Each structure stands twice: as structure tokens, then as C-alpha cells.
């Protein structure tokens, strides 16, 4: 009964997404949305993937990683090599970007995830910088002047990646495996004592997060015509971190909403480059002062909608909303 209901909701959202894709594609083709809006939409999509992937690592598993731009860079360069140097099709490049970043995540995750808190943050920060320096010094990918990439990212591809990212991460979170990750965030010693293989789940969360960061990297590379190592500095890592923190650590929908809002804010502020960072920073400070738990705290947006529902039809226990 519940499964049928879930399935209905699932297909309903698929239909909604398809309608949304068709409508926006139509608006883009018809020229109703000018290139400024289209670029903003693309940035929002990429940022949603980045925020969702980091949400899994920081918000769910509680591992404070601030080297996410490193995975973005690995995905971007790997995918650019696949399309530009090897001449293979774009979908393959997306997958290659994801897998390359996931492998990087595995390699960096196994040694560093033994560290906790501040130490992990510094180690991952170091990783992000190492990746940038490495690409800076490889002539094959253009060194400091970067690599030109053809514009292959299209709206349907982008949207498909966004939806897949969200579905995979939400499904992972709302399962016993996601609960294992959350228990690590809540209390690692107790999780260990309850039979959770904490190292395994930390690495898994890291690898899945890195994979989608790599996918975002592929979309990013094929959206901006050129990729340079400077695009992937630690400032980029902080941009992604801010999305997750503002959305509320542990809230997927919060991260998505923050990605949408902050991308719009920073895009419109780009008209005023002198004050852009000042205003952006002010927004963050005010936000942290008045809502330190982030936009949605640890709750999901569905749990706010459920309040109305359960008042009508009695208590509907949906385990979906109790997790994160």
C-alpha cells in the first residue's frame, strides 16, 4: 500500500520533471529566455549537483571536507580530455568525469578519513590545492592557460544529471546505509559500538559525493568553453561549502534551495563587481546570526508539507522524513 503510494509520487515527480524540461527547453529555443537567464539556469543546475554531493559528505556523514573543488577539477579535466583529446561523445565524458573523481575520492578518502574534525578539513583543503597545482603543471591539459572545451552541455543533459544526483543521494540517505552514515555524524564511537563499519561508510559517502562532484565538473567544463586551474582554487571549495551550510547541515532540500538562491544572488550582484563580495559576505553573516542552523535546519522540505497532511488524515508515519 505504502509502496504503491511511493511509486505514485515517484512517477508524478518524473512527469513533472519532464514537463519542466520541455517547457524550459521551449523557452530557451524560442528565445524568451535570453542568454543571461540561460547561463544562470545552467549555473544553478551545476551548483545544485555540487551542493547535493557535498551535503552527503558533510551534512549526512558529518565529515568536514573542504576540498570539493578538487573533485570538481578532476571531473572537469577528465571529461575535457575524453571529448577534446580522445574525441568521444559527451555522455561518456560525464561518466568518465564522475568515475575519475570517484577514484580520486577513494584514494584521498582511505588515508584522510581516519582524521577527525579540523584535521580532516586541513587534509582535504590540501588535497584540493594539490589537484590544482598538478593540473597547473601538466602541459597536456594546457597548464596555466587552461584547456579550451567545446560547449556541449545542454539543458536536458544538465537536468537529467541534477535529477539523477538528487534521486541517488536521497535514496541512499533514506535507507539503512544512509542511517549508518548519519549515526557516524551523530556519534562515531557509538556507531562503532553498534556494529557499523565506520571507515567503510565514510569512504562510501566520500566516493559517492566525489562522483557527483566529478559529474558537475564535466557539465561545468563543457559549459564555460575554457577550464583553467584557477577556477578550482580553495575559494571554489568554500563556495560549495557555503551552499551546504546555508541550506542547513543535514538537509538535502535546504542545500538545493540554497544553491538556487545564492546562485541567483551572486549572478545579479555580478553587475556590481566592486561591492559583490561585500554584499555576498553580509548576506552570509546576517544569515548565520539570525539562523545559525541554516535555512531548513536538519529537516527536509517534505516534513513541512507533511504537517498539513497529517492533521487531516491522522498520523501518517512516513519513515522517510525522520531521517535527516
Amino acid at each position, binding site marked *: 500500500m505504502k509502496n504503491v503510494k511511493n511509486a505514485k509520487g515517484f512517477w508524478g515527480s518524473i512527469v513533472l520533471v519532464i514537463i519542466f524540461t520541455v517547457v524550459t527547453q521551449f523557452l530557451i529555443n524560442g528565445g524568451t529566455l535570453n542568454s543571461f537567464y540561460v547561463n544562470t539556469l545552467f549555473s544553478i543546475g551545476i551548483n545544485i549537483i555540487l551542493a547535493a554531493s557535498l551535503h552527503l559528505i558533510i551534512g549526512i556523514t558529518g565529515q568536514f571536507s573542504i576540498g570539493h573543488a578538487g573533485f570538481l577539477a578532476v571531473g572537469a579535466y577528465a571529461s575535457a580530455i575524453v571529448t577534446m583529446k580522445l574525441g568521444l561523445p559527451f555522455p561518456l565524458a560525464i561518466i568518465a568525469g564522475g568515475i575519475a573523481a570517484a577514484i580520486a575520492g577513494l584514494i584521498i578518502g582511505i588515508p584522510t578519513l581516519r582524521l577527525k574534525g579540523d584535521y580532516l578539513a586541513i587534509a582535504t583543503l590540501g588535497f584540493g590545492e594539490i589537484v590544482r597545482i598538478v593540473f597547473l603543471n601538466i602541459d597536456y591539459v594546457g597548464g596555466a592557460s587552461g584547456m579550451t572545451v567545446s560547449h556541449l552541455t545542454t539543458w536536458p543533459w544538465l537536468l537529467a544529471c541534477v535529477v539523477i544526483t538528487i534521486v541517488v543521494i536521497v535514496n541512499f540517505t533514506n535507507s539503512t546505509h544512509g542511517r549508518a552514515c*548519519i549515526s557516524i555524524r551523530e556519534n562515531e564511537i*557509538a556507531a562503532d559500538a553498534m*556494529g*557499523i563499519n565506520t571507515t567503510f561508510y565514510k569512504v562510501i559517502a566520500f566516493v559517492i559525493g566525489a562522483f557527483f562532484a566529478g559529474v558537475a565538473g564535466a557539465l561545468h567544463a563543457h559549459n564555460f568553453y575554457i577550464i583553467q586551474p584557477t577556477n578550482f582554487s580553495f575559494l571554489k571549495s568554500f563556495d560549495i561549502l557555503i551552499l551546504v551550510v546555508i541550506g542547513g547541515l543535514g538537509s538535502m532540500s535546504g542545500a538545493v534551495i540554497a544553491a538556487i538562491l545564492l546562485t541567483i544572488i551572486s549572478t545579479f550582484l555580478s553587475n556590481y563587481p566592486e561591492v559583490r563580495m561585500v554584499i555576498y559576505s553580509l548576506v552570509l553573516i546576517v544569515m548565520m546570526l539570525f539562523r545559525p542552523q541554516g535555512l531548513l535546519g536538519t529537516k527536509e522540505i517534505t516534513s513541512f508539507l507533511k504537517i498539513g497532511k497529517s492533521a487531516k488524515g491522522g498520523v501518517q508515519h512516513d519513515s522517510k522524513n525522520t531521517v535527516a
Partner: protein
Amino acid sequence: MIAKTPLLKVENAGIRFGGLKAVSEVNLELNQGELVGLIGPNGAGKTTFFNLLTGVYVPTEGTISLDGDKLNGQAPYKITKKGITRTFQNIRLFSDLSVLDNVKVAYHSLAKHSILSSIFRLPSHFSGEKEMEEKAIEFLKIFKLETVLHEQAKNLPYGQQRRLEIARALAANPKLLLLDEPAAGMNPQETEELMNLIALIRERFSLTILLIEHDMLLVMGVCERIYVLDHGQLIAEGTPEQIRNNPKVIEAYLGEEVS
């Protein structure tokens, strides 16, 4: 009559941190179904000893074996799967998770559905999760926590948090349960409820229990045998009556008599 092989056998176990011997030369045996107390003054090494048993620390000397299976150097989660679970002196619940989810985490190692089946929402995911949920609800009824299933663990009153922690430790299906000061911070009435609970679970799950406690009333009341630890070493072992009259124990607790 002593059983053939003890459930837990600790031989000469000890750990040193640098030059400090926190626990040394501890010999201890627990038989199937026993309820044994471990007492000692503050800083005697009781919790350190629990950490040795559960793999949080690796013993630097001696051996620990469960059912003849050597546990030294095994990861904590593996020791849990082998059958030792514990509660903590300072409650360590998953405080943002619901009561139900706290217990479900303990069932995790029994889960049959893989990560991929959860990501793709295959039928095995749904059946696995459903089984887990039903089992957890049934289980929480034993502990009279079924009314707060969806409450966040951190919002429970103190006594219920303690009870939930014991429930969670039991859900992981242990042979040996280690309770680290379960009555800490409880009033006499709550302590009595706890004593009844311990008696209940012991009978129902045919458990072996090792209990650290400061509350002498509780220890003397429920334990069949008591070990006394002081300065990291066992100084006495025996029935509550023997322990009560043991001069070494009295000395450890009250100080040496002036002669």
C-alpha cells in the same frame, strides 16, 4: 558447578599509555548467564577495561577471548558482531535520530539489502527496510518505548534515554552486554526500575551481563559475583557478601586505617 568453557575469558590483560599502566594483569572469567559487577573507586580503570573488551583500545598485554575466539586487535564493529555490545557512562545516543531509527542502526549489521539495491529501490530494499522496522517496533515494546517511536532521542527524559541506550545495545543481538554505570544520575525510584529492567532482559534474552556501577545498593542487590578494580589491578573477587567484608576493598574505598 562451573561451565566447561567460560563465555568471556580475560587473561593477564592490560594496557599502558606511555609509562602509565592504566590496567594491568586483569584475569576475569564470565560464565554463560551470569550477572557480574565490576566496582572500584574513581579512576580505577573500569571504563578503560570496558574499552579493552570492546576494541576501542587494543590491549598491550594479555588476551581476551569470547567463546574461545580471540578478540585482541579486532575492530570495534567486528567485536560487536561477535557478540559484545555496551552502553556508555555518558549516554551516547544518536540524538538527532528518532527512537525507532536508533534501534534500526543497531540492526544494520543484519541488513541483507545492498547499497545498490537501496539506490535503485529494488524490491529487496523495501522488504529489508520493512522487516527492520517491524522488528524494531516489536523490540521497543519490550522497553515500553513504543509511545515515543518518532520522538528525537535527544528530547526523551533522562530515564528513557538510558532505557533506549540499553535497548539499542540489546538490539545488536549480543551474547555479552556491558553496562557502564547505567544508574548514574538516577533517583532511587528510577534505579529500582532499572534493576527490574536488568532482571527482565537477562531472563528474556538469556544474556551474560557485566556491570560497572557506583551505586552499591544496585550492585549488591543484583550481582552474583563482583570484581573489584583499584589502580588498574584486580584486588578482590567474590560474592557480594565476601566483597562487603574484604579488608582490601574497604581500604581502597575508605583509605587505610590509622594504626
